């Protein structure tokens, strides 16, 4: 069964639809890039999958179910902005994730935090923006979820951290889980991806595998992306 399925999915904020009748299927075992310029509907799609927004029409299904109590325990979500209360300490966040998510691997999270030089007693408000993003990503990737929804995971981090994040995603690979990464930094992620989805103004322009694009176009996905979006 598809881990994520959208049928005629539509969401409007004003008159302009953020997503316009999207049809989409993502199977387990893939790492999928959700690519598009700002305002193309990437975040909206991810929020709909998390149930943080409700569709205006059409439907979105996670493992065959509408977003809700059952789907939340199998989805691991990295939001575009860090969402922690800033008075909390790293270890309190670990406690919290351990409390609420049975699939949370605390040991793995602690190893990664150690690797990133983040102290367990450190408070969120004492951290730089990049550091908060790392903490959040580590927590999200330390779950053994069926669907990872990562909204701009490499947006604001330095190149070394970016490589570490991508390595983490690769070494975390699970043939029964799917990873969806939204980003506009395509050249950095394209070798990590199976499929790419090009989003523009709430429409899907293209949904292909990376090698398919390279084979038919003889160019990188990044180059194709630049061409496609220059014409618009």
């Amino acid at each position, binding site marked *: 069964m598809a881990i994520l399925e959208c049928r005629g999915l539509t969401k409007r904020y004003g008159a302009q639809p953020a997503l316009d009748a999207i049809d989409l299927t993502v199977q387990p075992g893939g790492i999928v890039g959700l690519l598009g310029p700002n305002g193309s509907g990437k975040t909206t799609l991810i*929020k709909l999958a*998390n149930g943080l*927004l*409700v569709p205006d029409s059409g439907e979105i299904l996670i493992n065959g179910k509408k977003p809700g109590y059952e789907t*939340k325990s199998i989805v691991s979500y990295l939001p575009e902005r860090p*969402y922690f*209360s800033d*008075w909390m300490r790293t270890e309190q966040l670990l406690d919290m994730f351990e409390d609420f998510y049975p699939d949370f691997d605390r040991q793995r999270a602690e190893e990664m935090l150690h690797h990133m030089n983040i102290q367990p007693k450190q408070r969120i408000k004492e951290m730089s923006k990049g550091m908060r993003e790392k903490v959040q990503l580590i927590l999200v990737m330390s779950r053994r979820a069926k669907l990872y929804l990562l909204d701009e995971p490499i947006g604001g981090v330095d190149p070394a951290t970016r490589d570490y994040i991508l390595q983490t995603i690769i070494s975390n690979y699970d043939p029964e889980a799917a990873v969806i990464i939204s980003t506009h930094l395509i050249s950095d992620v394209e070798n990590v991806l199976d499929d790419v989805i090009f989003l523009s103004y709430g429409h899907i322009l293209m949904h292909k595998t990376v090698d398919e694009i390279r084979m038919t176009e003889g160019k990188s996905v990044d180059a194709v992306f630049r061409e496609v979006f220059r014409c618009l």
Partner: protein
Amino acid sequence: MLIKLMKQDLRATGRVMLPLYLAAIILAALTRLMNVFQSSAMDSRFWNIFSGITAFLVGVAIVALVIMTFVMMVWRFYKNYMTDEGYLMFTLPVRTGELIFSKLIVTLFWYLCTGVVVLVAVLILGSGGNGSIEIMGVGDFFEAFSQSQKTGAALLSILMVLITGVSGVLELYASMAIGQSFKKNKVFMMVVFFFVFSIATSIVSSIFSTQSIVGASNMLSEAYALSADSVYKSAMRVLWTSIIVQGCWSVFYYFITHLMLSKRLNLQ
């Protein structure tokens, strides 16, 4: 999961509430100490003014504490569910009902604690000396009742206060839950709905309470003598009516909050 949510809420609110309580108690104790000094020292004008000021400050602090409790609990619901923190809270594998009840129970808990702290502060102020304050004046009202009637009335009064508190808190939650579902002007819509609900609640409540009071006074006039028994019966009738009315409001507001947070969540 409810317990785990409440643990988080207690941790988040406790770090504000506990220092406030401590400050209030210390302030009350200091004032009491002042009074002791004053009575032992000669009756200088300076001491009078000084103790007047401190007593006033304690009064302000107590009022501030009650207001702060209220504000903190509204703020907690808003910050934790309606802002970026909501991204975490609404993606936890918990049920919407648990999210609402966690906040509600923790809020009632802090209301209770604030009540106790205020009582303790007042007792400290009035303890010993000649200036003891009669706070149990309400006891006179129950004087005429029999023992079982007293217990019944007391329990029912507590229940009424509790359920009025619950419906008040849920009314706030429902306003916020409706406000967030709008695409624009979310906070403004929260305030608008709070006023709409407040007016509706007070209109309906006043209709019922006038009826029950009228009913009660009819009962009293029908009784030939103003016996303790008939006073008791009419008092119970007034209490029951408001408990039922407030209970209905609570259920109504709970379902609105639940519906909006589970089917109309709109965290843009």
